[in-house]
């Protein structure tokens, strides 16, 4: 009798544990996953899945229709990716509302929008939807994240496997990445805060993979691009007069300069950009223009935070997809270089 009670509590504990940790995954999917995992010893590890995903995202010809949901707003978008002459080409557009399109090819990205003149910027970094997780160095990223296979499910009609990237500390968000089991292409990406609340979600609803590059992309690759615009570079050689004395694990300073806000009266700002391979954080240090009632202000939308802090004559603004705690600690660590 005692044994029976013990047994049932054990089951209860297991149930509680699974429901606690799986988070939005059907339990039958979970069972499936563990079964197949046991059945196939040669199954890939989480990091191998993620690395295969990176390869597929860069090398395959595919078309994704996806939804981007952010604070109860859903925006349908399309991405067509291909490889032309060994070079990646990506065409992106919004499917609803005004026409907004972009094309990234051979180190340049062009923007087209209804009613405004198109323009091109130099940009070597892939800017498409899953680019941040597709460019991440997962080997190195083990310092800041743990990768765990959560289970299997079905997304966009495909068998999918969910992998969780759990931040090892509170200074960055965690992610759940869903991959197509056959092609390893990403199908869904959830950005979670430390209370497991989804802040931002990208979900593919249709995935088409083709042998050959889409004729549309082939045609676009031969088109002439709109005029190339250059950023005002003049002041960028000078370093900012500020130093960050604390960085969350994995983050590096990738930019440190003084430039002008072209969008705001050419106001001069000291600028530092941090990057950890997944997110970029901008830090602006400038003279205080208007004194706020509070010393600090936080504006948040989805995963993005805008943190304003005023101290003496100085105003510091931090923008990026990081938790508020991180922004706060970064600000505390800023000091003037002598």
């Amino acid at each position, binding site marked *: 009798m005692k044994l029976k009670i013990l047994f049932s509590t054990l089951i209860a504990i297991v149930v509680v544990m699974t429901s606690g940790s799986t988070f939005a995954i059907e339990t039958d999917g979970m069972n499936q996953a563990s079964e197949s995992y046991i059945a196939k010893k040669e199954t890939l590890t989480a990091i191998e899945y993620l690395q295969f995903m990176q390869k597929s995202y860069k090398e395959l010809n595919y078309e994704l229709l996806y939804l*981007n949901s*952010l*604070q109860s707003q859903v925006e349908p978008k399309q991405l067509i990716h291909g490889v032309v002459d060994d070079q990646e080409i990506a065409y*992106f557009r919004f499917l609803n*509302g005004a026409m*907004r399109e*972009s094309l990234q090819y051979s180190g340049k990205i062009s*923007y087209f*929008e209804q009613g*405004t*003149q198109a*323009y091109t*910027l*130099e*940009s070597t*970094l892939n*800017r498409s*939807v899953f680019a941040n997780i597709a460019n991440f160095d997962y080997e190195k990223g083990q310092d800041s994240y743990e990768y765990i296979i959560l289970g299997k499910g079905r997304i966009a009609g495909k068998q999918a496997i969910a992998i969780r990237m759990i931040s090892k500390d509170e200074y960055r968000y965690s992610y759940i990445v869903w991959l197509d089991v056959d092609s390893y292409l990403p199908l869904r990406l959830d950005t979670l805060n430390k*209370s497991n*609340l989804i802040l*931002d979600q*990208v979900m593919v609803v249709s995935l088409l993979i083709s042998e050959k590059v889409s004729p549309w992309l082939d045609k676009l690759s031969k088109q002439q691009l709109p005029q190339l*615009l*250059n*950023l*005002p570079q003049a002041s960028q050689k000078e370093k900012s007069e500020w130093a960050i004395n604390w960085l969350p694990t994995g983050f590096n300073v*990738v*930019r440190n300069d003084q430039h002008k*806000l*072209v*969008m*705001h009266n050419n*106001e001069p*700002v000291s*600028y530092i*950009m941090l990057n950890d391979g997944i997110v*970029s954080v*901008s830090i*602006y240090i400038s003279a205080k*223009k*208007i004194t*706020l*009632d*509070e010393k*600090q*202000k*936080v*504006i*948040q*939308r*989805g*995963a*993005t935070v*805008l943190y*304003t802090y005023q101290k003496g004559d100085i105003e510091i*603004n931090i*923008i*990026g997809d990081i938790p*508020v*705690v991180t922004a706060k600690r970064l600000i505390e660590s800023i000091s003037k270089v002598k």
Partner: protein
Amino acid sequence: MKDNNEQLSTLIDNEIIDHEVCESQLLDELITNKRQQAQFSRYHLVGDVMRGEVVDQFINIDISQQVMARIEKQAESAQVVTPDTPVYAMKESNNIVSFAKRFSQYAIAASVAGIVVLTSIVTSQPGIENNEPGIEVLNTVPFGGAVAPVSLQASHMQSKQAIKEHNERLDALLKDHQLQLQTQP
């Protein structure tokens, strides 16, 4: 006018039978009114075309004269407006000025995380991320939305103008952030 046209049309089609008074009135008007005459001849033309009684060259809907007249007029006014400023001067500054303008719209909307700043303030959301007092969490709306780009709450101490300026600045910072992301090394 419409009525008259109708009468004209029935007149041409010989469908006015017993309204002689009406007919003579109409004819009188036709003799005096130039517009009616033009209409009358057009109706005849239409009728002819429909009956296939027209040889091609008879249809002379001649717009060329009008077009020429317009062009002349435009050339005249264009000459008057032509500025003395040399064209190259404009081109030089073009690249950056228009850049700020152009960039301001799309690049934000394109980004997954584009924030824009808004009207109403939402007070601290306890339990989510920050429980610290003094930090307000503002609810924000993306660029495409119908909300005016204003943000921080107008607490009585601060003038509306100051807040507006501050928000414009935040907006500019967000755009610059997007821009920096685009051109990230």
